[in-house]
C-alpha cells in the first residue's frame, strides 16, 4: 500500500519515457520524427488525463458524481487565458496596451476590476487554483452541509456548469463572450508558436499529471482516504460512527476542483483558445466517461481512459466525422453495462487469473 504501487509505477515510467522521448523527437532528432502538432496534441491529452484524475478522486473514491467538473477546468483555463491576453499588450489588432482586443471592440473604456492583477504571472497562477477552489468551496459547503447526494448532486453540478456557460456567453461579463479568449502570443516571454515552448508546456503537463496522480494517491492511501471510501460506500454509517462527513467531502471536492483548474490552465496555452463551450454540460459528461472507461477508483485508469477517448476522438473525427458520436454513445452504453471496472479492471482481472496471483491484484477491488 505504498505511495507508488505497481500500477502507478508502470504508468509513471511510461509517462517519463514519453516526456523524454516526445520533446527529444521533436526538437533534437534528425528529420523531426515527432511533428510539432503532435506535441501540442499529446500535451492536451495529458491535461485531460489530469482532469480525469481529479474527477476520479471525487467520483471513484468519494462517490460524488460531478457533472460539472468542466466548469473548474474552464475557470482555470480562463484564469490563464486572462494572463495570456494581458501579455499580448499592444501587439493586438487595435494596439491598445491596456485593453485586450475584444474589449476595445466592445467599447470598454477601462479594464474591468476583475482583470486587475492578471498581468502578473504569479497572480494568474494563484487564481488558477483559487477561483475553481473558491467556487468548489462555496458550492460544496452548501451542498454537502444540506446533504444533497447522489443523483440530485449530479444534476445541480450540471446546472452549475450550465449557468456558468450561459454567463460566459454574455459579452457583458467581460470575458470575451462566445469568442472567448484567443490570439495568445507568448507566455513569460516564450513564443507560444515556437517548438521549444510547446515542448516545455508538454513537459509541464506531464509533470502536473504525475504530481496530480501522486497527490491523489497520497490522499487516497492515507487514513483520510479510507474515510472517503467509507463515505462512498455507506455515507450514513460513516456519519453515525462520528466522522464529519461534510468536512471530508468538502476537502476532497476542493482539491479536485483545483486540480481541474491546473489542468485547464495548462490546456489553454497549448490549444490557443478558451471559450464558453468548455463549460457545456456535454463536455463535463464526457469527462465522466473517460473515468468510467479507464476504471473508476483507480486513478491511473482514469488517466488512461482520458487519453484513449481523446485519441479516439482525434482519429475518428478526422477519418469519419459522422461516426464519432455513434462511437462515443456506444462507448457510454458498453462501458456502463459490460465493463463496470473499466479497461484497467479488465486487464488486471485477466492478469489476476493467471496461476501466480500478484499481491497487488486485490487493489482492483477498490
Amino acid at each position, binding site marked *: 500500500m505504498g505511495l507508488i504501487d505497481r500500477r502507478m509505477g508502470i504508468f509513471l515510467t511510461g509517462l517519463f519515457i514519453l516526456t523524454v522521448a516526445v520533446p527529444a523527437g521533436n526538437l533534437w532528432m534528425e528529420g523531426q520524427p515527432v511533428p510539432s502538432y503532435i506535441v501540442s496534441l499529446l500535451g492536451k491529452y495529458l491535461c485531460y488525463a489530469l482532469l480525469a484524475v481529479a474527477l476520479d478522486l471525487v467520483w471513484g473514491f468519494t462517490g460524488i458524481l460531478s457533472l460539472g467538473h468542466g466548469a473548474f477546468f474552464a475557470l482555470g483555463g480562463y484564469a490563464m487565458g486572462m494572463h495570456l491576453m494581458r501579455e499580448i499588450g499592444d501587439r493586438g489588432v487595435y494596439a491598445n496596451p491596456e485593453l485586450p482586443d475584444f474589449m476595445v471592440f466592445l467599447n470598454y473604456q477601462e479594464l474591468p476590476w476583475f482583470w486587475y492583477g492578471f498581468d502578473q504571472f504569479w497572480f494568474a497562477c494563484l487564481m488558477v487554483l483559487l477561483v475553481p477552489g473558491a467556487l468548489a468551496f462555496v458550492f460544496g459547503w*452548501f451542498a454537502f452541509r444540506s446533504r444533497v447526494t*447522489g443523483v*440530485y448532486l449530479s*444534476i445541480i453540478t450540471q446546472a452549475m456548469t450550465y*449557468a456558468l456557460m450561459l454567463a460566459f456567453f454574455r459579452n457583458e461579463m467581460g470575458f470575451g463572450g462566445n469568442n472567448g479568449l484567443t490570439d495568445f502570443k507568448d507566455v513569460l516571454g516564450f513564443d507560444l508558436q515556437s517548438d521549444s515552448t510547446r515542448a516545455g508546456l508538454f513537459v509541464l503537463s506531464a509533470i502536473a499529471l504525475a504530481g496530480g496522480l501522486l497527490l491523489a494517491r497520497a490522499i487516497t492511501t492515507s487514513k483520510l482516504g479510507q474515510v472517503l471510501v467509507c463515505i462512498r460506500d455507506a455515507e450514513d454509517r460513516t456519519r453515525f460512527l462520528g466522522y464529519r462527513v461534510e468536512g471530508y467531502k468538502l476537502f476532497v471536492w476542493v482539491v479536485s476542483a483545483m486540480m481541474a483548474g491546473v489542468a485547464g490552465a495548462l490546456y489553454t496555452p497549448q490549444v490557443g483558445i478558451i471559450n464558453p463551450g468548455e463549460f457545456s454540460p456535454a463536455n463535463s459528461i464526457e469527462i465522466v466517461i473517460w473515468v468510467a472507461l479507464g476504471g473508476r477508483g483507480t486513478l491511473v485508469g482514469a488517466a488512461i481512459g482520458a487519453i484513449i477517448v481523446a485519441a479516439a476522438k482525434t482519429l475518428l473525427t478526422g477519418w469519419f466525422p*459522422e461516426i464519432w458520436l455513434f462511437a462515443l454513445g456506444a462507448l457510454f452504453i458498453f462501458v456502463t*453495462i459490460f465493463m463496470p471496472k473499466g479497461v484497467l479492471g479488465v486487464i488486471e482481472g485477466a492478469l489476476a487469473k493467471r496461476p501466480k496471483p500478484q499481491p497487488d491484484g486485490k487493489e482492483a477491488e477498490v
Partner: protein
Amino acid sequence: MTIFRQCLAALFCCLATLASAQSFEELVAQLPEGKFAERAAVVAQLGALGDPRAVPVLEVLLEGNLHVLKSNEAIVAVREVGSDDVAYDALTGEEFGIIPRRGSSKIRVNNGLRRDIRAAIGTLTLRAPDPALRLAAADAAFRAPNPDQLELLQSVRSDESDSEVAEALDYAIAATVLESDLPDEAQVAAIDTLREMGNQDALSVLTPLLQATNPVMAAAAKDAVAAIEANQRLWNMAQNVWFGLSLGSVLLLAAIGLAITFGVMGVINMAHGELVMLGAYTTFAVQEVIRASFPGLFDWSLLIAAPLAFLIAGGVGVAIERGCVRFLYGRPLETLLATWGISLILQQTVRSIFGPNNREVGNPSWMSGAFDIGQMTITYNRLWILLFSLAVFAILLFVMKKTSMGLRMRAVTQNRAMAANMGIRTGWVDALTFGLGAGIAGLAGVALSQIDNVSPNLGQSYIVDSFMVVVFGGAGNLWGTLAAAFSLGIANKFLEPWTGAVLAKILVLVFIILFIQKRPRGLFAVKGRAVEN
C-alpha cells in the same frame, strides 16, 4: 392625342353627373396652383367638403403620383410602367394610356402637407359605410388632432351607431379638444375621457400636458397620467404572467415525461430531450408527406402527428428500457451515463437522416395569429400549447391515479418485490412506464416544433431545464412538477425586464441550486421511509 381627349371626357363626365358638387372638381383643379401652404388649404377644404370621391384622389396625391398634364391641365394619376409613364383616372383607376415623358408635371407634396392630407383622408372616411374604415379614421383623427375638425367630429359622433367607433370618436374628440382653446372645464373633461382610454396612446397625449402652464390642467393631467400608469402596470403584470404561463407550459411539456421516468421510476433518462426531438421530427415528417400528397390536410397535420409521435417516441423508449436501462436498475449514476450515450446516438442518427440544419415546421391556420384582451396580446400558438400541456398533464394524472395500469406502475416503483409477489409482471410494467414517459416526451416535441427550431440539438436545450423542473417540484410528485414548471416560468419572465433573458435564466438556475440545498427533496417532497435510498 386620344389620351387627352379621353381625359377631358372623363373630367366632363364627372362634372355632368355630379353637378351639385361642382366645388369638388374646382378644388381638385386648384391643387396644382400655388405653394405648399395654399395647397394645404385646398386639401383641408377637400376634407371638410365630405365628398367621398376626394379619398382616392388624395391618396394618389399622398403617394406623389398626382400629375397635371401640360397639354390640357387635366389631373391624372401617373405611374411608371417599365420605362413608360402611364396615366390613370385618379378616381376610378381606369387606364388612359401612355403619355410622353415630361408631358405632365407632378403635384409636389412635403411632409407637412402629407400630414394634412392624411388628416383630410381621415375626416373623409369618418363617414364611410364600413365601420372598420370609420374606426381607422377615428384613430387617425386621434393621432393628428386638428381643432378645425372638432365640429365635424362632434357631428359625426352624434350620428354614430356603432359603439366601438363611437368610443374611438370620443377619444378623438377629447384629443382635439386638448389641442383647441376651449375653456378649462371642457379640457379637464377631455383629460378624464382620455384617462378612461388608459393606454399608451392616451399617455402620449397626456404627458406633454404635465408641463401645461394652466395649474388646473396640469393637476388633472398628473392625476390622469398616474392613474393610467398604475393601470398599465397591472396590464404589464398580466402580460408577464401570461408570458410566464406560456414559458411554464413549455417547461411542463418538456419535464412531464421526465416526471414519470425520473420522478416515478427513479431512472435518470438523459436521452429525454432526444425523445422530445424525435416528436418534433415526426411532426416535420408528417407535414412533408402532407405537403407532398395531401395539401388539403395541412390544418390536421398536428393532430395526425401527435399520436404518431407518441407511438414513435414511446416505442424508442420501450426499446431503451428493454435494451439498456433494465440492466442498470439500482445504479442511477450508471443509468445516467448509458442514457447519455443513447442520446448521442439518437442525435447523430437524426443528423444523418435529416441533416444538421434547422427544419421548417409550419403552423396550421388555427395556430397562427393573435388576439387582444385589454392591453395584452395573446398568440394562438402559445394559447394552444398551454391548453395542450394542461390536457397532457390531466390525462397523465388520470392514467397514474385512476387506471389499473397506473396502480401497477405505482406498486412496482414503491415495492418491486412485493408487487412481483402479487403477480404483477414487473419487467413489463417497467417497460410500459418508461414508454409512457418517452411517449409524452414525443407529444411535447409536437408542441415545441411550433415555437422552437427543429434541429438535432433541440433536446439538448431542454434537458437541463426539465431536470430542474422535476427536481424543484420534488421527484415523484406530478403536482409538484406542475407547480414548479409554472412558478419557474413566471419567475423567469418577471426577472427578464430587469436583467435580460440570459441573466434571468442564470438567476433562476442559481435559485434552484440554492433551493435544493434548503429542501433537497424539492417543493413537494414525498414523505416517509420510501424516499430514503
